[in-house]
């Protein structure tokens, strides 16, 4: 089977193209001057600059973490450029009609619905190209409901009190090496605020795209769901093909106040590198949410892209009766490496968490699940259920599981289940004997394996995720 698997996995990256948009790019290197440049370029208030500088100084003292089960050449942070904006932004497009047609064309290639169709789909899109949010649609309609959904650069100017109150409260500047870097040089990202008792009238969606040669991208997203509110947020990513490895270090902070609910779904499809392991995105992400009383945060992610993934969307269950969920599909192929999982920190009483992690490894890739379930002394009656399944395709890939459980409260209930299986020759043969080609068969088997996670995704994302797995697995059967 292996050879067949190999052939199927080999398929060109369909999002691999490069759009020619003139860019306003800062030359490589990072020092205080660069931080000041970025802040000035974005016309930020003084407090924001100070916040960035504090992070930068902390970052200078920090060491790059090496504990993850991933291997890559040392990154020269001075060889990267830390600011890039599409040039056409200087003219500030007021509507889609004013937007660079090449940009629109690129969105079209990616199938991002930026026009009227999305009204029907009920999705508002805040598109981020490199470092600047270019078009934000339907913001007015959202603002009618009192919902704020805008680029974080804009929020810093328009809603400074809100941003100051919450920024860095879930992921502090010094949290880790990459979070500190992000805090110093973050380019843009999204800001969401859902007022008390409000159910966000539509699913919020952001597509990120890396488009400049050799530019790191550092999004910063902050979502605040005020008491009793609800929001579902969709994050989707894809990047054009290139040779150089690109660094990506995003930070996402979620704040769910009392009785609030945040559902955060991600489909990540950045360039994974070629069949020989050349190129691809280095993805070092810090995502974390805090749940106050009776609040709930659900992370659902489908990760198929990037050469290196280092990502642990986590929940701090601070309030009593709060709930944290993590549903993940991580697929690696060729020479991709993923070290991903979650942390569930139980602080409040009767807090509950669920972890369902599905790892699929094909080609020569390595996939690791790393998870921490911590029950603090005061977390009376806390419960966790963890299910961790690995699926291997072929015999040259690896799957690893690193579960950590720390319980300081004897009333806690913690369950952990783990399985490892292979797409067997017999399963493949059964499918082929029934008339399915091997590629379709593997994609069907893998989709079946991921079913529990896919059903947590919003409908349109679930379809996209299924397709994405199919594309990512092409060439993986043998």
């Amino acid at each position, binding site marked *: *089977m292996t050879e067949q698997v190999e052939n199927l996995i080999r398929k060109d990256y369909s999002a691999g193209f490069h759009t020619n948009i003139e860019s306003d790019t800062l030359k490589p290197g990072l020092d205080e001057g660069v931080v000041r440049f970025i802040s000035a370029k974005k016309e930020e208030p003084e407090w924001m600059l100070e916040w960035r500088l504090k992070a930068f100084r902390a970052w200078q003292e920090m060491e790059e973490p090496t504990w993850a089960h991933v291997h890559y050449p040392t990154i020269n942070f001075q060889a990267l450029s830390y600011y890039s904006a599409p040039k056409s932004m200087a003219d500030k497009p007021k509507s889609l009609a004013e937007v660079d047609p090449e940009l629109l064309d690129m969105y079209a290639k990616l199938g991002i619905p930026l026009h009227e169709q999305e009204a029907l789909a009920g999705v508002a899109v805040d598109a981020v190209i490199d470092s600047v949010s270019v078009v934000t649609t339907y913001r007015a309609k959202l603002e009618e409901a009192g919902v704020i959904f805008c680029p974080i650069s804009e929020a810093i100017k328009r809603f400074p009190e809100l941003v100051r109150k919450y920024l860095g409260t879930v992921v502090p500047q010094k949290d880790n090496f990459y979070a500190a870097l992000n805090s110093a040089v973050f380019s843009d990202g999204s800001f969401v605020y859902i007022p008390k008792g409000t159910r966000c009238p539509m699913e919020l969606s952001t597509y990120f795209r890396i488009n400049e040669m050799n530019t790191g991208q550092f999004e910063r997203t902050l979502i605040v769901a005020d008491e009793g509110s609800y929001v579902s947020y969709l994050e989707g990513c894809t990047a054009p093909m290139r040779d150089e490895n690109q660094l990506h270090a995003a930070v996402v902070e979620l704040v769910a106040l009392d009785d609030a609910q945040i559902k955060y779904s991600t489909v990540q499809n950045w360039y994974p590198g070629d069949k020989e392991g050349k190129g691809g995105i280095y993805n070092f992400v810090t995502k974390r949410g805090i749940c106050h009383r009776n609040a709930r945060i659900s992370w659902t992610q489908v990760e198929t892209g990037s050469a290196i993934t280092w990502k642990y969307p986590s929940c701090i269950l601070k309030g009593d009766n709060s709930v944290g969920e993590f549903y993940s599909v991580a697929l690696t192929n060729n020479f991709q490496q993923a070290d991903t999982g979650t942390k569930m920190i139980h602080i409040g009483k009767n807090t509950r968490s669920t972890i369902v992690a599905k790892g699929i490894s094909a080609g020569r890739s390595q996939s690791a699940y790393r998870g921490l379930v911590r029950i603090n002394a005061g977390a009376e009656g806390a419960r966790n259920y963890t299910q961790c399944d690995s699926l291997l395709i072929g015999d040259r890939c690896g799957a690893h599981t690193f579960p950590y459980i720390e319980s300081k409260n004897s009333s806690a209930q913690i369950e952990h289940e783990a399985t490892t299986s292979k797409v*067997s*020759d*017999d*399963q493949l*043969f*059964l*499918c*082929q*004997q*029934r*008339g*399915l*080609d*091997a590629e*379709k068969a593997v994609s*069907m*088997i893998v*989709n*079946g*394996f*991921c*079913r*529990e996670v896919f059903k947590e995704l919003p409908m349109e994302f679930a379809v996209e995720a299924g397709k994405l797995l199919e594309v990512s697995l092409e060439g993986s059967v043998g």
Partner: protein
Amino acid sequence: MLEIHNLNARVEGADILRNLSLSVKPGEVHAIMGPNGAGKSTLGNVLSGRPGYEVTSGEVLFNSKNLLELEIEERAREGLFLAFQYPVEIPGVTNMEFLKASVDARRKHLGLPDLSSFDFMKLARETSKKVSLDPAFLKRGVNEGFSGGEKKRNEIMQMMLLEPNLCILDETDSGLDIDALQVVAAGVNAMRDGKRSFIVVTHYQRLLDYIVPDFVHVLAAGRIVKTGGKDLALELEAKGYAWLEDEGA
């Protein structure tokens, strides 16, 4: 329908089929019997193209096409169906989804339009009842948590939906109680229409009480050593295989 000429095949370096020849005409039911290790299951696996089964020489024509040149899925779409002795589970892939994809592939090959989901579901529900499977099985993962008998009935249901030209049943009777055996046999008999052909591979005569063959072949040491009518099966039941193995050697 199917013409096998001097077929030689090996598995893991061992010669299993030796100069096997067999001709199956439309509408015929051929039973292949024989002792353990005679190569009975190998025949079905070779014909369906299972990896690991190497054809060293010989020729197989199926619907006048060179079968051995076709990919596994092409053979299937062409109308060759193998009912497995040990059907595997595919967790999380619903039976319905799996069957629809299979039937779509076969229909596409035949130049027929896809059935709508609605029509297909209706058809699948009706078919499941014919093999005494609760339609709820359609929503479950393929063979996931099915009992041995349910798996075999699921195979027959797949066969009915795919409407193949040639059905190869590989020891479908193994591990079945008498009730399940009758359900399976009734399913097969209902599909006998004078055009569709069957190769029934079995160790025991019992199945042939229900699926009455036109020909019975005895396979020993990789070749057909004796061919007869349905009475031969009874004779084998009484006398065993040893006398024939001597003949074949």
